[in-house]
């Protein structure tokens, strides 16, 4: 492998310093929140079925909806919107930070 080849490496799991490293960090945080809440809740729900916790969960309601139905059908889309807002706010911030940093380096 030549040094030339090394210079142009792009790998999600080995981001280069600067903007890309910050960007990849927030991507992983958001994806973690996305996967955990979406699939984690379903796994929890399936695991609770038939146990005492399951019948407790089935009895809970919110806005007259069974809690798990409300969580999946109404809260999860809201959660996705929250994730997107968090992502955008963070990207706006690091974009501003790195733009300032870059412009200063030209001085």
């Amino acid at each position, binding site marked *: 492998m030549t040094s030339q080849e090394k210079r142009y490496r792009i790998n999600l799991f080995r981001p280069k310093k600067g903007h890309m490293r910050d960007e990849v960090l927030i991507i992983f945080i958001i994806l973690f929140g996305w996967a955990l809440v979406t699939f984690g809740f379903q796994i929890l729900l399936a695991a609770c079925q038939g146990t005492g916790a399951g019948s407790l969960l089935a009895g809970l309601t919110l806005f007259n909806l069974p809690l798990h*139905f409300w969580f999946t059908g109404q809260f999860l*889309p809201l959660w996705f919107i929250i994730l997107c807002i968090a992502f955008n706010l963070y990207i706006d911030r690091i*974009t501003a930070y790195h733009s300032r940093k870059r412009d200063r380096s030209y001085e």
Partner: protein
Amino acid sequence: MSDSGWSIGIVICVLVSFILVGLKQKSRDSFEYGFGGRYTGRIGGGAAIASNWMSAASLMGLAGIIYLNGYLALAYVIGWTGGYVLLLVLLASQIRRFGKFTAPDFVGERYGSPAARFLTAVISIGISVIYCVAQFKGIGMIFSFLLGVDYRHGVLYGGLAVVSYLVLSGILGVPRNQQMLYFVISVSFIVPLMWLAHRLGYFWLLPQFGYGAAMGDLSRQFGIDLAAPFAHGTLFQWCALCFTLMVGTAGLPHVLSRFYTVPNLRDARWSVVWGLFFIAIIYWSAPAYAVFGKLMEARMGQFLEPSAARSMADIIVLKTAVLAGLPGWLVGVLAAGALSAAFFTVAGLLMTGAASISFDIYYRIFHPMASESSRMKVAKAGTLVLAGIVLLIALNPPGLIAEITAVAFALAGNTIFPLFVLGIWWDRANDDGAVAGMLVGIVCTFAQPLFGGIVPQVAVLFPLTSSALCGAPLVILVMIVVSLLSPAPPEEMRRFLHDEVHGHLD
């Protein structure tokens, strides 16, 4: 005038008004701005994303599948919203910096291979056709419902209507008004729902919350529990379906190209948030139609056989409105919203498919010297041929609207999504990997009908509507292995990825 006469009148008015508003906008634009399509800000961009997304699957199929499958069908709600998170964080900004906006263009440029471009074009066309079949089924069911004819005649009339509408808009050169479309779709979906909730005696100001009480009544009085988790499918089936729809959303060609109508990257990102919010408004409402429909049927003592319920599930939105005694004009409003969504989705998909035929296949591969006018002819002929194929398949629809659509998502998630993700995030991915990945992806998508009979395990792991949970990771693995075994992509492309796509602020 009879009730159904009112319904049909409203539907025609709404469809004609799109043309009239478009024409007015066109003359004003060319006068005031000199170009079509204005910048309408983040909220306008969000409405454009949402209206581009809404189709018969969202407005009819979703309520239908929830009516049939209860909690299992919420995987559709989650899959079709959660996919935007993937799209936003993994692809949106980077593809925009890459500068190629259609799937075949991106693949052709990134992997530098005519074979990969050809395969992507074929896959895009396949996705458009499958997706359109679902729309045609929706259009056909609405037509047969309104006109009182059988389904096959409904599809024929509906197909004729949508193609004439397309041709007419094309001849007049009408620009699509996406903001108006979203407004029409959401109002025509939610106002009848409020009326319905009011009529049935539930909290009607926000029927998205009001249907909770109806769900309680349904289970107390009639013993029907739509909320029972995993009653119609296992945890694996739920997750597989949800994941497939998510990666499919992030890989669907006509969704990807939506990011470039907004002039700067920051607004493009924020318009995704608005788009997702506008989509969620419809998706919070769809289960209400399913619950009210079930409740109306139960109150009237109609307990349908599973096969009968399945055959009318896709029209449950309109059926509920009629059962509850909504006035004819309001049923017309409801039908008009769903029809306009389906019409414009068909228009967009057929044009995407035809563009792939004329540009990516005819011009880039077979006739590089073809003139502009001959390419246009191929595109126009391609649109009609695709519409014909779709119509033939839709005469005997293979499933529910949501299910047919899910197959298109599975195909996108198994092929285009891995190509985009690796193409953007791994410089070493090359043309051999891309071609191998796409072939494996196609096989994964259709593994159940192809091999399900021979190896039962395949049918369990790769169900037709939900093959991407196992398929997409497998395709990514194949792409990585094949890429590592073959020569690295050109230095020029790796430098471009390093300096432009991921180095714009270095």
